[in-house]
C-alpha cells in the first residue's frame, strides 16, 4: 500500500501528455489561430474584468499542470507564488509608479526566488507528502504576510494598485483595453510552459513522471530537475498572480489562503491533467460559474464547487480537454478502421 506512495504519482493524464503524438502542421497552425482569435475575442463576449480573471486563473492552472501532468508532482501550495507575486507586484506598482508590466515581472521573479528554498525542501518527499509539505509552506507564507502589516496591509490587504502604463488613460482606466495590454504577459507564461514541455528538458520530466528510478539510473539528477520545473512553474504562477492583482487593483490575504491553492487544482483537474491547454477551459467554467453565483446572491459557493470537485474526481477524471481528446481519437480511430475495411473489400 505504501509502496505506491514512494514513487512519483500516477494520475490519469490525457493523450496529449504522451510524447509521441504528431499533429498535421496545418491542423496545428489552424488550432493555434483559432485559439488566439478566441482569446482576442473574449472581452467582446463577456465583461472584460471577468475575461481577465479567466486568463489569469487559466495561466495559474497551466503552472499547476506543468508540475502535476508533466512531472507528476501535485503542489497544493501554489497560492504562495500567486499571492506573493500579487503583493510584490502591488508594492512595486504603488511605490515606484513603474509600468505595470515591470511590476508584474518583478513579482514573478520574487515568486521564483521563494520557490528555490521551498522547492528544495518539498522535493525531498514525493506523492501525497509533496502535496502536504507544499500546503504547509504556503500556510507559513500566509501567516508571515498576515504579520508583516507594514508591507502587506495585514487583514486589509493592499488597496489601490495602479495600472500605470506611460500615462495612457485608455489602458489605465478601461478594463477592456487593459485586457489587451496585459495579455502579452499571459501569452508569455503560456509560451514558457509550452516550450518547457516540448523541449528535451520536458522529456526528462516525463521520464521522471513515468519512472523516477529509471530516470535516475539513466544519470539524471531527479531532484534537480524537479526543483527547476518547480521554479519555472512558480514564475508562471507569479505572472498570473501579478496580472490578477493589477487587474483588480488590490492584493489581499485571500490570494495566499489554501483555498486558493485548492481552487487552482480544481480548475486544472476540471480542464484535464496533462493537457496544458485544459487549464484555461477549466478556468472559464469555474470563473463564469462563480461570477454567476455571486451575482445571483447565492451564498455558499463552496457547496457548488465542492460538489463539482467530488463529481469530477469520481466520474470525470480526464477533465474537459482529456475527454474531448479521447472522443476525437476514438472517432478518428473508427474512421481509420472503416477506411481500412473499404480498401480490403
Amino acid at each position: 500500500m505504501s509502496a505506491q506512495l514512494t514513487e512519483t504519482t500516477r494520475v490519469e493524464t490525457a493523450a496529449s501528455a504522451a510524447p509521441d503524438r504528431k499533429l498535421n502542421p496545418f491542423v496545428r497552425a489552424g488550432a493555434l489561430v483559432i485559439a488566439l482569435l478566441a482569446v482576442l475575442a473574449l472581452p467582446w463576449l463577456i465583461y472584460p474584468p471577468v475575461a481577465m480573471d479567466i486568463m489569469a486563473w487559466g495561466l495559474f492552472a497551466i503552472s499547476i499542470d506543468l508540475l502535476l501532468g508533466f512531472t507528476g508532482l501535485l503542489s497544493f501550495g501554489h497560492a504562495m507564488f500567486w499571492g506573493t507575486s500579487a503583493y510584490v507586484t502591488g508594492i512595486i506598482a504603488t511605490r515606484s509608479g513603474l509600468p505595470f508590466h515591470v511590476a508584474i515581472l518583478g513579482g514573478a521573479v520574487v515568486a521564483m526566488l521563494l520557490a528555490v528554498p521551498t522547492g528544495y525542501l518539498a522535493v525531498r518527499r514525493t506523492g501525497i507528502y509533496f502535496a502536504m509539505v507544499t500546503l504547509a509552506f504556503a500556510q507559513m507564507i500566509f501567516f508571515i504576510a498576515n504579520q508583516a502589516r507594514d508591507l502587506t496591509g495585514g487583514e486589509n490587504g493592499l488597496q489601490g494598485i495602479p495600472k500605470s502604463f506611460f500615462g495612457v488613460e485608455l489602458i489605465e482606466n478601461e478594463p477592456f483595453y487593459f485586457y489587451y495590454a496585459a495579455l502579452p504577459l499571459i501569452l508569455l507564461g503560456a509560451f514558457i510552459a509550452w516550450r518547457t514541455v516540448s523541449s528535451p528538458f520536458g522529456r526528462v520530466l516525463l521520464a521522471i513522471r513515468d519512472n523516477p528510478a529509471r530516470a535516475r539510473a539513466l544519470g539524471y539528477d531527479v531532484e534537480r530537475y524537479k526543483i527547476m520545473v518547480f521554479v519555472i512553474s512558480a514564475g508562471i504562477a507569479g505572472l498570473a498572480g501579478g496580472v490578477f492583482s493589477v487587474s483588480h487593483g488590490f492584493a489581499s490575504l485571500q490570494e495566499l489562503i489554501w483555498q486558493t491553492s485548492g481552487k487552482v487544482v480544481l480548475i486544472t483537474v476540471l480542464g484535464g491533467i496533462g493537457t496544458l491547454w485544459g487549464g484555461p477551459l477549466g478556468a472559464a467554467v469555474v470563473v463564469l460559474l462563480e461570477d454567476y453565483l455571486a451575482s445571483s446572491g447565492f451564498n455558499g459557493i463552496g457547496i457548488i464547487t465542492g460538489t463539482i470537485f467530488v463529481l469530477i474526481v469520481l466520474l470525470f477524471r480526464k477533465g474537459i480537454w482529456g475527454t474531448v481528446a479521447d472522443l476525437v481519437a476514438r472517432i478518428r480511430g473508427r474512421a481509420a478502421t472503416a477506411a481500412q475495411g473499404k480498401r480490403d473489400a
Partner: protein
Amino acid sequence: MSAFIQYTLQGLATGGFYALAALGLAVIFGVMGVVNFSHGAMYMLGAVGSAVLLDVADIPFWGALVIVPILLFLFGVLVERLLVRWLLKLDPLYNFLLTFGLTLLIVDLVKRKYGVSGLPYELPAGLEGRVTVGGLSLSSYQLFAAFFSVALCVAVWLLLTKTRIGMIVRASTEDAERTRALGINVGRWVTPVFGFGIALAGVAGVLAAPFRAITADMGSNFIIILFAVVVIGGLGSILGAVIAGFLVGLVEAYGQAYAPSYAQVLIFVLMAAVVLVRPAGLFGREEAS
C-alpha cells in the same frame, strides 16, 4: 516558573486535540492509504455538533462526548461506502482531492445553516473552576482535556497492540496482501477503520468546543497544522502522530506566550527543519527512492 507550567498545560491540552485527530488520520492512512483532507471539517463538525446538541436537545458536554463521536462514526461509514471506496484502487491523490471537495461542501453547508459567527458553548458542569496545586492555579477544564486525550491515546494504543482487532488492523497496515493470504477479510475492516478515524477527529472537536470559538472555519487552519503534525511524526507511524501532536501543541503554546505574532509560523519552521534533517519524519521509515 508558574507561568511556564501554565503554558505547558495549555500546550498539552491543545496538543491533545492534535494528537487525537492525527491518530485518526494516521490509522486511516495506514489501513487505506488515504490522506483524509476532510479531517479538519470532521473536527469542526464535532465542535458544532456539541453546540447544536446543547441548543436543540439540551444535551450537555458529557452527553456530547459520547453521542457526537458515534454520529461521526456513522457519517464516516457513509462517506467511505458512498465515495472514498470507489477511488481506493487509484492513485492516492484522487482521494486527497475528493476529500478536499468534501471539505468545501461541508464547511459551506454549515456556514449556510449556522452563519459565520461563533456558536455559544460553556465549560462543562463540574469543570468550571480552577485547581490549585502547590501554589499554582490551573484551569480544571484544561487539566481534564490534557489528561483525557492522553488517556484516550493510550487506550487506542492498547486497542491496537493488545487486541485481536488491533492485530488485524496493524497487519493490514503492514502488508494488506499477505494479511489477506492469511484468511483475513481486509476489505471488511476498511469501513469501520475509516469511521473510527473520523470519530477520533470528532472527539477532538468535542473537547475543543468549550474553549475555542465554534465556527464553520475552525477546521480550516486545524487541518493544515494536522498535516504538519503527520509530516513531523512520519505519516506511516501511529506513535509518531501522537508524539508530534503533543510536540506541536507545546510549540504553539510556548510560541503564543513568548513570540505571539509568530506562534503559527514556528510550527512550520519545525516542520521544515524535520523535512530537512529526516525527510521521512521523526518516527517514519525512510522511503526507497
